[in-house]
């Protein structure tokens, strides 16, 4: 039998088992980043410290709501809740409101979020390149905004 072409079965699971985060913590995956949260509220959704919202999604809490660029989502008692005198932001309720897909693995306390659709309107409606942030092989962080002033060909490929 001929050797299988473009087959790397040895790379399917090459890693040793190790913890995803410290016990009692939770992790959020968003745009390729892992954000570890040392404290979360109790309940069915993901209740985060309101101060963590910006480092997760770029949205900032302001008097007019949760805001990103010129978009502001008004807050309500479902999004901002209080438990034992401490305030929490319900990130999953926020995602539901914005129709942002996510999956979570309860046993591992990991939530993985897809992009917020409203942040993509500028591409879908106006044809503007979406923001992204990704390291190159040399470790430099490449952002769409860094490419302003140049023409860019963005091309995906793979070994397969």
């Amino acid at each position, binding site marked *: 039998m001929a050797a299988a072409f473009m087959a790397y079965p040895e790379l399917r699971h090459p890693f040793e088992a190790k913890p995803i985060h410290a016990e009692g913590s939770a992790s959020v995956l968003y745009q390729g980043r892992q954000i570890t949260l040392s404290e979360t509220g109790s309940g069915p959704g993901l209740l985060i410290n309101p101060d963590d919202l910006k480092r997760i999604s770029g949205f900032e809490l302001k008097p007019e709501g949760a805001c990103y660029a010129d978009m502001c989502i008004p807050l309500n008692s479902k999004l901002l809740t209080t438990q034992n005198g401490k305030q929490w932001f319900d990130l999953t309720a926020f995602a539901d409101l914005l129709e942002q897909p996510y999956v979570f693995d309860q046993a591992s306390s990991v939530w993985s979020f897809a992009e917020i659709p409203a942040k993509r309107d500028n591409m879908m409606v106006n044809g503007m390149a979406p923001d*992204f942030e990704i390291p190159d092989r040399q470790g430099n962080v*490449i952002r769409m905004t860094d490419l302003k002033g140049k023409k860019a060909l963005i091309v995906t490929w*793979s070994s397969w």
Partner: protein
Amino acid sequence: MPVWQQVYEEINDPDFVILCVAEDTGGEAVAGPIFDAAKATYIQIVDADHIISSAFNFVNVPSAAWIDEEGRIVRIDEGTYAKIHELGNKEQSIKFGNDVYTPALRDWVEKGAKSEFVQSVETVTGNIRELSFDQQKADAAFRLANLFREHGLTEKAEEYWNLTQTLNPESINFFRQNLTLSEEGSAGQSFMERRGEYESQKKDYYRPLDMDS
């Protein structure tokens, strides 16, 4: 990706960049040596989580976007080959790719908005794939699977890779990245059957190039 390196050197314009993005889940171990062999000097990215494909709604490789100085997409989502490739020997070979894409790219770098290959906002937005809620959710499931893989949690990685393909069965990327990490490989029986299904249903495996618009 020696062919893109050649194109990059030929165009040789300080205001033109190529971001060449490898979607291999095998990561640097698979894609790194290919970049190194090409002596690549363009921006090289190993994107095991498919962040760039997600950002531009790509579902296959190779796929590309042209982005102008203002950040406007002027072409998007085409089966992007820089030349005609030939696999095999003289008696029996498979040809794929095309020889019209690179000259068009060169024309755009030279002429900018005046290039006949620049598409209107309407054409560009019409060519961006609309992804359903579940297809977007598949991206989130895929990254969760990859996180579990990186932490040696093999069963969970498999569970969420399976969920990924259930949520987005149309994605060739998810299908083939899974096959490439198996004994069969990404161009074996499963791939041939899938490709055959596409052909019998007259579906485009790649969105065809339309260099007349």
